[in-house]
């Protein structure tokens, strides 16, 4: 497997000497699902924003799809974000006076898809995310879980190399969080979507292939998770009668 993202010594310092990231080395394989966890303020969002070109490192390198991108101008980053990355945040940021369908198709059209292709992809995505019947609805009338699924469809319309998600379940009740997690799991397990996801929710992190635990701007610990063995549930549960 090729790494899709590689960072070397990735560092972000703010004026006044706050070191939000202190030299991070990570590598994300194609098709891998990496969760980033850690206490508030440890640098998770800073890392994700640097990977997505929403912020610039003060030192260190970023490779995306095999080439250096850390020195890119804002204009080149804008293309990278549009064509190669998908973003999902805690708040959905859907456009209230556009339909669900238009919200999802818009970034496709901006990236140069034909109207027909954008419509076909949007139809498939909404269907696979279980919200096919909401295409004509206004996002303002949807539940949080439904809005986040629309935001995920929007993030996937250009078939990004990497989906970057910052606390995608952070604003949701637990039932909606489950729905959103189910569609992310499916995107990864069934369609091989590479995902880097920041979360403080252990249940969400437990779905990843690898969990990076951050402390004070550094990766303190890394955990690889194995697919569960369904027959071990009785051992896990240890129910006694």
């Amino acid at each position, binding site marked *: 497997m090729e790494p899709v993202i590689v960072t070397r010594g990735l560092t972000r310092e703010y004026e006044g000497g706050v070191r939000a990231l202190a030299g991070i080395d990570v590598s994300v394989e194609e098709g891998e699902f990496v969760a980033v966890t850690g206490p508030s303020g440890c640098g998770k969002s800073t890392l994700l924003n640097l990977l997505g070109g929403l912020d610039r490192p003060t030192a260190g390198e970023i490779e995306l799809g095999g080439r250096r991108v850390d020195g890119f101008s804002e204009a080149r980053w804008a293309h990278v974000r549009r064509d190669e990355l998908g973003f999902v945040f805690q708040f959905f940021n859907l456009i209230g006076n556009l339909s669900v369908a238009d919200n999802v198709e818009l970034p496709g059209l901006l990236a140069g898809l034909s109207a027909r292709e954008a419509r076909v992809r949007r139809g498939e995505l909404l269907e696979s995310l279980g919200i096919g019947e909401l295409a004509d609805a206004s996002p303002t009338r949807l539940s949080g879980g439904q809005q986040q699924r629309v935001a995920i469809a929007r993030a996937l319309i250009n078939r990004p190399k990497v989906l970057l998600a910052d606390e995608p379940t952070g604003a949701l009740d637990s039932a909606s969080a489950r729905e959103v997690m189910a569609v992310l799991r499916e995107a990864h397990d069934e369609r091989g979507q590479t995902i880097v996801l920041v979360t403080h929710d252990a249940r969400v992190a437990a779905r990843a292939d690898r969990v990076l635990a951050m402390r004070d701007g550094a990766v303190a*610990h890394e955990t690889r998770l*194995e697919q569960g063995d*369904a027959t071990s549930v009785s051992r896990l549960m240890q129910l006694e*009668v």
Partner: protein
Amino acid sequence: MRFPLLALLAGGPAHGYELKQALEQRFGSVLPPINAGQIYTTLSRLERDGLVGDDAVAQNGRPNKRVYSLTEAGRAELGGWVADATPAARLKDDFFIKLVLARAAGIADPAELIARQRDAYLQALRELDDVALTTNGDETAALLIEGAALHLEADLKWLDLCEQRLGS
């Protein structure tokens, strides 16, 4: 196993084998394999204590089959079990004992112990989540798995607290 067997017999007389099957049917995938011997041992203790009775049913060419049923005393005993609240799970935590003592003796890095424990809980959570995907409408199993997952989430939060207070 005493009260579960009494509770099953409240539904009507049954053979030992039927009781085993009924337990497996109700708790299916989440219950470790049940040892038939344990069922028969428990039934004979219940009988000794006067909580169940048994009738022998003749079978062609085979030993008599025993059909167990609840006695009045058994019904009263069962009533008490059903009526009483079940005590909250006590905090039995081998890890915490290990953490405190290993830290005091200086024989392990507490942060590393906590990280390793977190790995194990995360993996367990993953396995529960994977198996939850296979319950296919088995509500009993789904509910039990959800309960176990909530416990693990609490354990993980508690590890965060241990890290803050004892992690160095």
